[in-house]
């Protein structure tokens, strides 16, 4: 009687643990809601970096751009910028390439593959006080 009871309990626990682990890791894993930028999925990290690169085009402040990239927690942010730029080039992500190349150039990571995507500087017109 006791043997049967204990045996049934053990079998039940075994089944329960398997089910519980499946639920806890696969079906209903822990969802974090107070995450840092460094925990973002790679896609969103790339998207964030692209936005920072576009922001650099707006304000031309490379220090501010690098500061904005710090929360991503990359060990070497210059390497990361270069890698992402070269990845966008290899993926022909046309809209993203020029701004990322400009950011790479600003941090001194303009590689030969990026050269042809550099934005051509536009000569500034002569200001006139009045017409």
């Amino acid at each position: 009687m006791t043997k049967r009871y204990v045996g049934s309990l053990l079998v039940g626990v075994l089944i329960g643990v398997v089910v519980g682990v499946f639920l806890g890791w696969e079906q209903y894993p822990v969802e974090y809601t107070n995450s840092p930028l460094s925990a973002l999925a790679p896609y969103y990290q790339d998207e964030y970096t692209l936005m920072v690169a576009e922001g650099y085009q707006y304000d031309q402040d490379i220090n501010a751009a690098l500061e904005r990239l710090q929360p991503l927690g990359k060990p070497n942010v210059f390497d990361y910028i270069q890698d992402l730029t070269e990845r966008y080039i290899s993926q022909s992500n046309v809209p993203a390439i020029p701004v990322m190349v400009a950011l790479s150039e600003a941090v001194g990571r303009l590689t030969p593959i990026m050269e042809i995507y550099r934005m051509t500087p536009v000569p500034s017109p002569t200001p006139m006080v009045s017409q």
Partner: protein
Amino acid sequence: MRAGGGGLSWFALILGVAIGIGAGLFYTWEIDPIIEHNTAPWQLGKAAREDYVVAVALSYAHNRDLTLAFNRLLALKPEQNVWQLVADVACERVKTGKTVSNSDIRVIRALEQLYRPQGASGCADGLYPTPAPLVFVTPIPSPTATPTLPPPPTKTPTPSSVAIVSPPVLPTPTPAVGERFIVTRTQSFCDPNVDGVIEVRVYDEAGEGIPGVPVTVLWSGSETERFYTGLQPERGLEYADFQMTPGRTYTVTIPGLVSAPPQVEAAPCRAELDGEMVTVTTSYWVNFQQRAR
């Protein structure tokens, strides 16, 4: 309670399953949860959300793609209107003193450029107005009349009476629904004789002026005025203008516009009139052109 001849106690089995599930969930949620590596923007904490919104605003300040900015903000799954979220971030940055450096000021301006035209507002409204743009004028060469010799008198006799038939007046072309236009020029100028005027010109693919195009100007969130090109033929069939009120920001658009509608600000500027510097309101040239198919 016992299973019919199977040698199992159903009670013990169910109790065991319950204990096992509890233990399994405790282990997977508390002791060894899945390592966080695939977080979406909506899961970001407050500081990270602020960084993300700032990046969206700076990106928008560069590319002026409102739809893209909206979709990026939507990824944050905000509890309120996405534009109000941007306004709140700007307000929070002002309150917490993140307005020290030039970069901080530009961030506030970028945030404001994103949320204010969409009707949102916050405590950062108008604190750091965008300075009036510098006036860069590209001199347009005026056509020089080339002297030509008068044509020699022809020897062909002219009929004494010739019926002069004027060419038929063709209906003026107006853009059909579905035409796609882009903004080709948005440029400010400071002219004491043209005080706060938006000069709109609409061209077709070949660069010919299109009359009869309805131009809509929006301001203050809900005010609009519509006027048409070609009503001042002495200025060209493509031409229409609008008188601005100083201090307001206007959005100019036409039907079929596929690029972001330009925004202009009736900001004060200084210009020379009869040897004296006077303050007038900035005027703008805004050109639209049909996009090549």
